[in-house]
């Protein structure tokens, strides 16, 4: 397997924890925990910074370093490196080349796979963005290693199979099969272990400007057409001519209009809303409370609202001060995107709906009746009704 990233030897020693990376040692950096840093116009994707936080925890547990992999062109991209250190990286591999200015799958996969082969990290994490989900599988296939999509948790733990213990594997945790199960996936015999994670799932680490780290410049150059053009004196990563099959015709980026992620109040509607018209009621409550509209996938699939509003494992992860779930049953995929909210209010006519088990407040009833009551109550600042009037006057 000349192009494989290598197989992991199972370790039998019970006390090998701190030496976890030792069998992989192939030089400096072997066994590190890496994050692929996605950047657009010199701005790092938030998910990449969030992943640096989790990578830091994993690396500390394993006694290894955190590496950040940054691809781009020009000074703006390179200027990001110190921020990556501040967010937890020990080493930043910076590959700058005009052909890497915009993300393109083949060129990026060549560089990322090339770096992995060279430095042999044991874990590589990617944001589950359209870029990460395009790149990571291509890299995994090139290296013939495993990849788990849309993880909701990443931990270090052991695996026992047929009496053999493999130490310190990456537990890649994700809900599966309609949310009825949570699966823990491992990659026991291949390296690196790779996973993608959605934005907002991991907590953004505090930037610490005093942290220090190493910046490693990675040389990249275009290969000559045809023959392999590796020169002995040159350790640049070569982009073969075959990588240039795709070109960007147009990139149209709009400012995100939804702003779910930073919202302090989210009012979300699900299948129970019943219709597009019903969604107007959800929107009205959101507007009244100064919040942003969210939705379950069922509501998105029904076409009542745009996919950008979807909350959950395959949507946005939110942590507002208040999350109001209207007619949402509370599938594990939906909860993955909202159960960290400070307060959750669930409105559902089924008293046994799973959503109530993560909610702080529950109202059993028809949302078409309950939402207008909430709107009215808020407009009068919670002062209608004898009880609260009495309280307010106390």
């Amino acid at each position, binding site marked *: 397997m000349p192009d494989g990233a290598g197989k992991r030897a199972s370790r039998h020693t019970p006390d090998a924890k701190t030496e976890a990376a030792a069998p992989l040692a192939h030089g400096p950096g072997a066994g590190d925990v890496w994050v692929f840093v996605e950047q657009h116009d010199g701005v790092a994707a938030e998910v990449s910074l969030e992943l640096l936080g989790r990578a830091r925890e994993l690396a500390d547990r394993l006694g290894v370093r955190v590496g950040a992999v940054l691809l781009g062109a020009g000074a703006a991209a390179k200027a990001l490196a110190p921020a990556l250190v501040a967010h937890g990286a020990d080493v930043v591999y910076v590959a700058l080349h005009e052909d890497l200015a915009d993300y393109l*799958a083949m060129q990026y*996969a060549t560089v990322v796979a090339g770096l992995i082969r060279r430095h042999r990290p044991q874990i590589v994490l990617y944001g589950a963005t*359209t*870029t990460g*989900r*395009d790149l*990571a*599988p*291509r890299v*995994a*296939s090139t290296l*013939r*290693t*495993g990849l*788990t*999509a*849309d993880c909701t948790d990443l931990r270090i733990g052991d695996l026992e199979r047929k009496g053999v213990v493999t130490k310190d594997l990456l537990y890649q945790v994700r809900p599966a*099969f*309609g949310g*009825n*199960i*949570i*699966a*823990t*996936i491992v*990659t026991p015999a291949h390296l690196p272990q790779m996973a993608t994670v959605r934005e907002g799932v991991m907590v953004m680490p505090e930037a610490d400007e005093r942290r220090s780290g190493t910046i490693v410049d990675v040389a990249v150059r275009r290969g000559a057409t045809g023959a392999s053009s590796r020169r002995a004196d040159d350790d640049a990563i070569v982009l073969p001519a*075959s*990588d240039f*099959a*795709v*070109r*960007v*015709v*147009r*990139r*149209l*980026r709009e400012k*995100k209009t939804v702003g779910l992620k930073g919202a*302090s109040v989210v009012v979300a509607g699900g299948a129970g809303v019943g219709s597009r018209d019903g969604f107007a009621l959800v929107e009205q409550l959101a507007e009244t409370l*100064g919040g942003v509209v969210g939705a379950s996938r069922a509501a998105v699939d029904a076409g009542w609202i745009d996919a950008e509003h979807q909350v959950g*494992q395959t949507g946005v992860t939110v942590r507002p*001060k*208040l999350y109001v779930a209207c007619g949402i049953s509370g599938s594990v995929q939906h909860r993955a995107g909202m159960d960290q909210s400070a*307060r959750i209010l*669930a409105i559902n006519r089924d008293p046994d709906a*799973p959503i109530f088990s993560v*909610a*702080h*407040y529950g*109202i059993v*009833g*028809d949302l078409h009746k*309950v939402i207008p009551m909430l709107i009215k*109550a808020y407009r009068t600042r*919670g*002062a209608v*009704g004898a*009880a*609260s009037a009495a*309280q307010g006057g106390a």
Partner: protein
Amino acid sequence: MSDQPDSPRPLRLIVLVKQVPDTANVTGDAMKEDGTIDRAALPAVFNPEDLNALEEALKLKDRHGGRVTVITMGPPAAVAVLRESLYRGADEVILLTDKAFAGADTLATSYALAQAIKKVGAFDLVLCGRQAIDGDTAQVGPQTAEKLGVPEITCVSRIDEVVLGAREGRRDDTAASGTARGRVVATRSVEDGFETLDSALPALLTITAEANEPRPPSVKLVMVYKHIAAEALPEYDDSYLDPDAEEAQVCMLDHAGRPVCRAKVVQWDHAAIGAERELVGLRGSPTRVKEIESVVLAQSEARMVAADETAIAELVHELIEEHILA
């Protein structure tokens, strides 16, 4: 072929489809001890975005002429999605089925699919759904592209244009062969907008639900194929893919959709596609399911609030007091 649009040559299109368990209805007994799913215990459906991929292929065939080959990997029962494909206008269907394929993760799956595609021969485009609803990984498309050595464009919401070059494909075509085969221009949806990419052929595209409204099965084709059965071929005859051979040997439909001969479901096992045993199925899968937990919901801790105006007003009041609401 007078009503055929003026393309220099017909398109060779391959569509990858998957039969998936209807994930809305997984029950406890659908789970096997090793953590894999017992698909037989679940209702099975055509993966929705794979239907969108098939529709794009059929639209391209309508426009440029050509041939649509549909490949699925799965148990014998997965022939249902192939039948559905024929009813919608696919020309040829291939079932990859073998006990050795069982337990495949996305890497082992893409290896088997790529081997099968190589056996089918030269192609212009491979189309597949962006993701399957049973796993939502979106990994098989890019991984298959990598194994084939061709570019991928994922999350395609629109195929803007296919420009065919004059050159017929060869089996060993890769991205390095340049644009002599032609080009595809496609628009993909990304988080904050769109991007339009231009790729040399051959290429692989993954198609999203936004791309189209899949056509329903054609009543006429349903009648034609009514008696289709899975039939293993000892030796797959691929001579029709030879540009110089006559194109009427395996389940051809003519341009107007009239069958030239009755469709057969071609069945291949791992040996038929020249796949190494160690690289398919569970053995070829780097990932393992370590543990499956059924989701056990914690006892409700929610404070229940009556659905009347007084109680709701109290709740809102409290939320304002606690600065949860402004």
